[in-house]
């Protein structure tokens, strides 16, 4: 579905190699998590494989089409949700989705049926005919997701998709990711949420300082699942025993600090007197 081979990217006027010699392959029907610290190279990799950024070395193939040699065919099979939810804000939601559907040559019947389905799924029907500039952060994220799915792409790429979303929308997106994969499609997404990745992904890759350090199965491998946090912390060079133990403990215990006891004053005494009298 997606094959990245020896990808190398250096930004102009920069000595630092943003992404160096990255290779991985995504299979049909899997959800693939892409982990790394801020600035590790996740977004750069995603921007290269979606065609946003040119790259100096390696190849990227989407459904067998080279993104550099046959970009139109490669992009036709891909749907992308950016991390900043930037869209054409002066268009209405419906105008934007129709615009994207036109560019992906989706028939009128197909787009109507899909849009209706997604509007119900993502609870966006009330806002679809409003200008996007009036949308909230989460609503913009949802319209980006609908636009990315309107042509039912084989490869769905999401850059930190759950950021800023309410719990219900997060649950809806997770459910749809599963549904999308069940049809034989592939989902590739970057995230900082290790717990979500552990529960959702079939496989995961960890990138650090532009290098792909580890790529392993999570589905059916309880040991990998259990060790995900530790591996992540060790790979990213942030592992400290005490911090890691704290992190694990935080997942199991309540973190709420005890509140200081309220200082009693005249008013409170008066109030409690009132209660007592009433009783």
């Amino acid at each position, binding site marked *: 579905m997606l094959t990245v081979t020896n990808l190398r990217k250096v930004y102009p006027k920069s000595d630092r190699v943003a992404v160096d010699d990255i290779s991985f392959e995504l299979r049909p029907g899997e959800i693939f998590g892409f982990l790394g610290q801020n600035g590790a190279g996740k977004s750069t990799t995603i921007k290269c494989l979606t065609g946003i950024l040119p790259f100096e070395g390696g190849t990227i193939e989407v459904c067998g089409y080279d993104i550099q040699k046959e*970009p139109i065919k490669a992009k*036709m099979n891909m749907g992308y949700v950016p991390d900043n939810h930037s869209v054409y804000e002066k268009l209405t939601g419906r105008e934007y989705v129709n*615009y994207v*559907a*036109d*560019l992906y040559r989706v028939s009128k019947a197909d787009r109507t049926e899909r849009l209706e389905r997604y509007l119900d799924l993502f609870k966006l029907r009330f806002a679809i005919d409003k200008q996007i500039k009036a949308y909230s952060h989460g609503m913009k994220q949802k319209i980006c997701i609908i636009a990315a799915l309107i042509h039912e792409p084989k490869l769905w790429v999401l850059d930190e998709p759950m950021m800023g979303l309410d719990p219900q929308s997060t649950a809806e997106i997770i459910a749809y990711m599963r549904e999308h994969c069940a049809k034989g499609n592939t989902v590739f997404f970057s995230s900082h949420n290790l717990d979500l990745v552990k529960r959702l992904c079939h496989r995961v890759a960890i990138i650090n300082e532009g290098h792909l350090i580890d790529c392993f199965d999570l589905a059916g491998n309880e040991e990998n699942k259990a060790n995900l946090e530790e591996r992540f912390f060790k790979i990213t060079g942030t592992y400290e025993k005490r911090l890691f133990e704290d992190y694990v403990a935080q997942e199991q215990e309540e973190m709420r600090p005890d509140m200081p006891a309220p200082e009693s004053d005249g008013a409170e005494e008066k109030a409690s007197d009132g209660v007592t009298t009433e009783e």
Partner: protein
Amino acid sequence: MKDKISWLSVRSLVRLEMRARFGSRVDMTAKAKASKALSIIFTLAIYAVLVTGIYYLAEMFVRRSHMPFEFLVVAMTFTVCVTTIVAIGNVVKNLYLSGDNELLLRFPVNGREILISKSIYCFLHNVVINLLIMIPLCVIYGVVSSAPVGYYFVAIAVTLLAIPLPYAIANLLAIPVMMIMNLVKNQFLLVLILLIAAICGVFILYMTALSGVLEYMRDESESMFSPAVMDIFRNFANSAYPFRWYALLLGGWFSGYGSQAAGLSFLYLFLITAALCVGAYFVTSRTYYQIILNGIETEKVSFQKKIPNIKRSVFGTLLHREFFLILRSFNYSFQYLAMAVAAPVMVYYCNDLAATMGKNTVGAAIVPGLTLLVIIIFSAIIVSFASTSISREGNAFYHTKIVPVSYTTQILAKLFLYGAVGTASVVLSTVVVAAAFGTDKAGNLLTSLDIGCIFIISQMITMALTCLAIAADVKSPTFNVVGDGEMVSANKNMVVSLLVGIVVAALFGVFTMVFSFLPLQVGDVVIVPAGEMNNIYAILAGISVVILAGSIAALFANLERRYQKIAP
């Protein structure tokens, strides 16, 4: 709103405002310094033109027509109106539409402190504008009318008295202006029509005034005003209150009106100014906080438009999106669509004025060259907007990279839209000049050959300039956007595109004008005899074809590779 005012906070807010306006004290690069120096020189040049215009008007009224008092009334009417309009714009922009209101409210400052700090900036702006108009006006009047020394002291007092009035009126009018702006917020077509009407109206007024001044400069022996026009000015000067009071105070006392009239005028003006200032203070201080809060709350208010799902071709949908993103922005509509529609009106008036002046001094043969010059200049102004076509994608630029449409197709859609608007403008301009100058009544200043060739050459240059403008933006776009994705300001590509257009217009115009009189020759060999317009046009058309071919090549050669290199 009843919080105590902290003057320390006000001082900090004023300093913040000044820093935001004029930049912090950082070392400027040589390029930035040169750019700033050029900008200052350009502003000074415009100001010099204004002052010269005032001088000629003063001479026309005072020396030639012996109407010094009438001049003062007209001048004060102009000054108060202009400074009031400028002050309204300044107050609305800085007090109510300022993007930092929401940010400032997060700080531990109250609404009154924000109001006072912003008002200080607005008032200083008002003082500068008033002084820039009043000082040359008063000095020129004093010189032209040989006023006594006392006049200049009175002029200083009147200038100081005149400063608060426009600011007070602006504060009072800004509130209804804001209400109207909110009403027409999403009426894009209505706003576009109003903008076109306003541009045309202001331009026609300006050109009419300029034409009058130039006519006067051309023939000073001719009487400036007819008796009927002089009566109109006299009647206006007698009834135009409160402007008449300013004139009485300023020059009435040595123009035969007596000191009592001046004293009463001062009293009236003082009372009116004081009343308006007090009124403006109470109204603004009571409503300001609510209005900016309302502005923040309704900032995201947008329109709702129910449409069916429509399937368009790829090219059609790209065109549709590009056009609506321009139409739904007041800023872009004004810069582009309004200018494009108003251009034929501007072309007519400019050409009329230039042709009249040129015909009288050089001869009618100059008219085709002037027409070509004017049409290409206005086309260059319109198509320079295309030089932000990539930059205007802003944060959504990534979208152009991920969609399964070649960059060439995307650029072709942009070229088609800007080319079509440019073409429509050239066609209309040509039709207008043909109707105005190509008839028997107009003396056939333009023949059918002239009109046809001017259209073909202008059209080729318009398309070439459009290609070059887009190519410049492909080479170096600047994705500097704010709010709902609009560009902060025009980028350098726009200036370059405009300059290239003006240079081409000047070269083509001058070439046509010169060789309509002189033969084109190399050494002793005459290539084109004098006045053979068909040969002149053939040469220009040939050059235009070469420029157009070069521009198309500059835009489309290796476009896919160059576009792919753009990294947002």
